[in-house]
C-alpha cells in the first residue's frame, strides 16, 4: 500500500518535472539581432563611427588577409575581411572590402578585387537571446556560449561529483552533515546542481523534510530524463545571482551584463570567479554592497580554480591582484526593446513556429539611436530634477524612435533606469496626451474642405454644459484670449479655445474617427475635453498616430521584428509590412506644413538651440492638465520620435511639453544626423505665404510675420492690401455682399 502511494507520488512528480522543463529549458533560445549598419557612398558614418562599429562587433585590428573578423585602418581607409554572416535575405561568405570614410560619411567602397561595391552591410550585432514563447527577462546562454572555465568552475565549487551522481549526492550529504555537526552550525550544503535547479523552479525556501524529499525525487527524475549537459546549461541560465531593486537577476548571462556590462563570453577569469562565488550567497557577497566580502570570496574561488589546475599559476596571480572590475550596467542590454520584440513575436507569428529550436530574430533596433535616446533622457531628467530640488521623487520618462516610412521601431527607452526591465513606460504608461491630439482636429478641418490653414477661427471664451450637468470652461495655457486667428497660428501656438470651437464645429465623432483612422486602436470617449487631449495613450500609440502624419496619410504597422529565420535560415511565415492609405495625402500635406510652423513660430521654438542649423522638423508639444504630463511628438525626414516626461504617480511636474519632453526629443534627434523633413507636395496643393497673425496673403518678404503654408490649388485667399492685390470680386460676389448688407 505504502509502496503504491510512493509510486503514485513519484509518477506525479515526474509529470510535473517533465511538463515544466520540456517547454522551458530544452528549447535552444532564439538569438536576437539588432539591425546591421548599412554602408554606401554618402551613408552618414564617419571613419571613427565605422571603427567603433567594427570593435563593437569584435573585429580586431590586424592583417585582414589572415582571416575573417580582422580589419586594418590606415588614416581614413579601412581594409576589412568580413565574417560569414546570415542576413534575412542572404548568407554571405567572408569578403575582403575596402572602405573610405571622412569625418562625416562614407566616401568610397570597393571589393579587394577592385570591383565597385555599391552597398555593403556589417554583421548584425547580437543583442541577446530569448525564449520567444515564455516572456521572461533572461539573457539566455546557449550551450555553445558557455565558457569552459565556467563549466568546470561551477562544478568544482558547487557540486564536485556532478558528473557521477544521479541527482542526489549521498556522499556529499554525509560529508556536509559531518562538517556541520563538527562546526555546530551549517557550514556546507549538500545540494547538487540538479537539486538547486529543482529548488529554483518548483519549491519554496522552507527547510522541511518533506520538501527535501520532494526535491531529491524530482532531481532524480530530471537526471533520468535529461543529459548532464542539458541540466548544467539549464542551471547556468536559472541560478539566482542578485537583486536589482524589484528585479531578480537570474542566470549567468544576465549576471554578466548586470555586474560587468559585457557578454558572458568576454569575462576574464577573475570576473567569472566572482560570479561563481556569488552563487553561495548573492546578498551576502553582493559586490556592490559588500566589496570586501565579495573580493575575499572571489579570491577563494580563484585559489581553488588554480589548485584544480583549471587556471595556471600566472593567470591566478594576475586575477588575484585585479580589482572587482564592476561596471555600471549598460552595453547592449536593452530590456525595454526586447519587451517590444516579445510582443511583436506574439502578434506576428504562430506560437507553434516560435517553439522551434535555434531561431534567429532580426529586429530593427538601431544601437546608435538607442544609445542616443537613453543618453538624452537620463541627462535631461537629471537636469530637470536638479531644478525641482525640493522633490524626493525622480521624474520619469520614455522615448520611442521609429522610421516612419517602414514602421521600423529603432529605439525604445522605457524609463530613466534604462537597464531595468520593470515597468515599460514606452509601451504601458497610458497618460493623457494633451495637445498632441490637436493635429487630429486640424486634419479633420482640412479634410472637410471647409477650412484651409489660412481660414480664420475665433479664439474666444467658451462654456459648455456637459451631459452630467456640469459646466466646462476651458482656458488657454497662458490664460489669454487671442480673437480671430488663422488655423496655422492656432495650431502652432496650441490655442485651446480656438481648437475647442473648431472641433465642436466639425463634430466630436468626426474628430474621433480621424484619430482612429490615424492609428488609435480603441474608440475615445466623445467628451468635448477630447479636443484638448484628455484621451489616454501610451507613447507607442502616439507613435502610431504620428507615423501616419509623417508618412503622407499612409498608416504603416509598427514593427520591431523584421524577420525570424529557422535553423536552416528559412523565414517563418509572418505578416508582412502592412500599409494602409487612411487619410487624403493633400490634407495631410497641408497639416504637415502647419506642424512645420510649431518649431519656427509656435510652442517648440526652443528646439532650434539643440538641433543642427537649418534642420527642418515638424511636430507638436503636449501638456496635460496641471502639467502632469509633458509630451513632444515630432519628425524629420529620417526619423519620428515621441517623448513623454512625468511622474509615475501623475503629480504635477511644472513642465510644459516644451520644457520637459522637447529637449529630450531634440537631443535624441540631433545625435541621429537626420535629413530635413521635406514632404513631396501633391499636385493638387500649392505653397502660399500668409501673415501668421492675420492670415492674409502676402509675400515672403513683405510682412515681417510671413509664413509659408499649403492650400488646395487656386484657393482664393484674402490678400494683405499692402503686399498683394486681392483679385477683384466678381459682379456676382458684389451682389451677394450687397444683399448681405441689406439683410443684416
Amino acid at each position: 500500500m505504502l509502496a503504491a502511494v510512493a509510486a503514485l507520488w513519484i509518477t506525479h512528480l515526474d509529470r510535473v518535472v517533465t511538463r515544466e522543463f520540456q517547454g522551458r529549458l530544452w528549447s535552444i533560445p532564439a538569438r536576437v539581432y539588432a539591425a546591421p549598419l548599412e554602408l554606401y557612398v554618402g551613408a552618414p558614418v564617419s571613419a571613427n563611427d565605422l571603427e567603433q562599429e567594427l570593435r563593437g562587433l569584435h573585429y580586431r585590428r590586424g592583417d585582414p588577409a589572415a582571416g575573417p573578423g580582422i580589419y586594418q585602418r590606415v588614416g581614413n581607409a579601412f581594409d576589412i575581411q568580413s565574417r560569414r554572416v546570415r542576413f534575412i535575405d542572404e548568407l554571405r561568405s567572408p569578403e575582403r572590402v575596402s572602405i573610405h570614410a571622412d569625418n562625416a560619411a562614407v566616401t568610397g567602397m570597393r571589393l579587394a578585387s577592385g570591383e565597385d561595391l555599391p552597398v555593403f552591410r556589417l554583421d548584425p550585432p547580437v543583442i541577446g537571446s530569448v525564449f520567444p514563447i515564455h516572456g521572461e527577462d533572461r539573457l539566455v546562454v546557449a550551450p555553445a556560449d558557455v565558457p569552459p572555465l565556467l563549466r568546470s568552475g561551477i562544478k568544482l565549487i558547487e557540486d564536485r561529483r556532478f558528473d557521477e551522481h544521479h541527482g542526489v549526492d549521498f556522499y556529499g550529504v554525509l560529508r556536509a552533515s559531518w562538517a556541520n555537526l563538527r562546526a555546530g552550525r551549517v557550514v556546507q550544503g549538500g545540494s547538487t546542481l540538479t537539486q538547486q535547479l529543482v529548488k529554483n523552479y518548483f519549491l519554496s525556501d522552507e527547510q522541511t523534510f518533506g520538501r527535501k524529499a520532494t526535491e531529491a525525487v524530482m532531481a532524480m527524475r530530471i537526471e533520468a530524463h535529461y543529459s548532464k549537459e542539458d541540466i548544467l546549461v539549464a542551471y547556468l541560465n536559472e541560478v539566482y545571482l542578485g537583486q536589482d531593486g524589484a528585479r531578480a537577476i537570474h542566470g549567468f548571462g544576465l549576471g554578466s551584463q548586470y555586474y560587468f556590462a559585457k557578454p558572458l563570453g568576454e569575462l576574464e577569469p577573475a570576473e567569472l570567479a566572482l560570479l561563481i562565488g556569488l552563487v553561495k550567497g548573492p546578498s551576502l557577497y553582493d559586490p556592490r554592497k559588500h566589496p570586501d566580502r565579495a573580493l575575499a570570496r572571489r579570491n577563494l574561488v580563484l585559489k581553488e580554480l588554480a589548485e584544480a589546475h583549471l587556471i595556471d599559476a600566472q593567470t591566478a596571480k594576475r586575477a588575484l591582484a585585479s580589482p572587482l572590475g564592476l561596471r555600471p550596467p549598460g552595453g547592449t542590454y536593452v530590456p525595454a526593446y526586447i519587451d517590444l520584440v516579445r510582443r511583436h513575436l506574439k502578434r506576428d507569428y504562430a506560437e507553434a513556429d516560435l517553439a522551434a529550436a535555434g531561431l534567429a530574430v532580426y529586429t530593427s533596433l538601431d544601437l546608435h539611436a538607442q544609445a542616443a535616446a537613453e543618453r538624452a533622457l537620463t541627462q535631461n531628467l537629471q537636469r530637470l530634477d536638479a531644478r525641482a530640488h525640493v522633490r524626493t521623487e525622480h521624474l520619469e520618462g520614455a522615448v520611442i524612435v521609429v522610421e516612419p516610412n517602414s514602421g521600423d521601431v529603432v529605439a525604445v527607452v522605457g524609463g530613466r533606469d534604462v537597464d531595468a526591465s520593470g515597468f515599460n513606460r514606452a509601451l504601458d504608461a497610458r497618460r493623457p496626451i494633451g495637445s498632441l491630439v490637436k493635429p487630429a482636429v486640424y486634419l479633420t478641418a482640412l479634410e472637410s474642405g471647409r477650412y484651409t490653414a489660412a481660414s480664420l477661427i475665433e479664439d474666444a471664451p467658451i462654456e459648455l454644459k456637459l451631459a452630467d450637468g456640469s459646466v466646462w470652461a476651458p482656458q488657454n495655457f497662458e490664460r489669454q484670449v487671442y480673437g480671430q486667428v488663422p488655423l496655422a497660428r492656432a495650431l502652432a501656438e496650441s490655442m485651446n479655445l480656438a481648437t475647442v470651437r473648431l472641433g465642436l464645429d466639425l463634430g466630436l465623432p468626426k474628430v474621433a474617427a480621424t484619430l482612429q483612422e490615424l492609428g488609435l486602436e480603441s474608440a475615445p470617449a466623445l467628451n468635448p475635453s477630447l479636443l484638448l487631449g484628455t484621451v489616454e495613450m501610451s507613447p507607442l500609440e502616439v507613435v502610431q498616430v504620428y507615423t501616419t502624419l509623417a508618412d503622407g496619410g499612409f498608416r504603416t504597422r509598427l514593427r520591431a521584428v523584421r524577420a525570424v529565420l529557422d535553423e536552416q535560415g528559412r523565414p517563418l511565415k509572418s505578416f508582412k509590412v502592412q500599409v494602409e492609405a487612411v487619410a487624403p495625402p493633400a490634407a495631410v500635406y497641408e497639416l504637415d506644413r502647419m506642424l512645420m510652423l510649431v518649431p519656427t513660430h509656435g510652442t517648440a521654438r526652443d528646439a532650434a538651440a539643440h538641433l543642427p542649423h537649418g534642420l527642418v522638423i515638424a511636430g507638436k508639444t503636449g501638456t496635460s492638465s496641471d502639467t502632469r504630463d509633458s509630451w513632444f511628438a515630432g519628425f524629420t525626414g529620417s526619423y519620428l520620435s515621441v517623448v513623454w516626461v512625468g511622474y509615475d504617480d501623475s503629480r504635477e511636474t511644472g513642465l510644459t511639453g516644451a520644457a520637459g519632453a522637447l529637449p529630450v526629443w531634440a537631443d535624441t534627434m540631433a545625435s541621429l544626423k537626420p535629413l530635413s523633413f521635406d514632404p513631396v507636395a501633391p499636385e493638387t496643393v500649392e505653397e502660399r505665404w500668409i501673415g501668421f497673425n492675420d492670415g492674409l496673403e502676402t509675400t515672403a518678404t513683405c510682412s515681417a510675420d510671413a509664413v509659408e503654408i499649403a492650400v488646395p490649388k487656386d484657393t482664393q485667399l484674402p490678400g494683405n492690401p499692402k503686399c498683394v492685390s486681392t483679385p477683384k470680386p466678381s459682379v456676382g460676389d458684389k451682389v451677394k455682399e450687397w444683399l448681405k448688407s441689406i439683410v443684416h
Partner: protein
Amino acid sequence: MAQEYRALRRVAALGLVVNLSLLLGGCPSPWTRPEPQRSAPAIPAQPAPAPPSAPAPAPPRPQAPPRENHLSPATRSLVTQAHTLLAHGDIDGASATLDRALRIEPSNPLLWIELGRVRLVDGNAHQAEVCARKALALASGDPAAQGQAGKVLSDALRAQGRNQEAAQVESRPYMH
C-alpha cells in the same frame, strides 16, 4: 503539392519580370538606364519683394519643373538583386532586399513601384495597391514615375476585380 505551388509561383514571377521588360519596350528600365542628368534644382524662385507703398499684383506662382526620380548606385544594385531573387522565386528575399533599399531611400517612388510589383507576384493585390498609391503620392511632378506607378495601381485594381477604377487610372494623362 506545396512544391508544385511554389514552382507555379516561380513561373509567375519569371513571367512578370519578362512582361515588365516587354512592357517597358524600347526604353530601358530605370535601374539599367544611365544616370540622368539632374535637371535644374527644383527650388521655386523666390517672389521678388514688393515695395510696401505700391501693392503689386499677387506674384505669378512658379510652376515646379517636372522632377525626375532615379535610383542611387546603392539602391539600384539592391533592386537588381531583388529582381534576381524574384526570378528564382524567392519572393520573401526580394521583398526583404527592397525593404533594405527603402531604408536607404524611403521616399523614392521607384522603390515603392518595385515593392508593389513584388506584392502583385505574391498575390497580395491589396498591398500592391497601397504601394502603388504611395508611389504615386511620392512621384508627384514626375510623369515617368507616375506612369509606372499608375500601371502597378491599375494592375492591382484589376486583380481585385475593380475594373472600373482601373480604367479611370488608365485614363489619367501620365498613363499615355
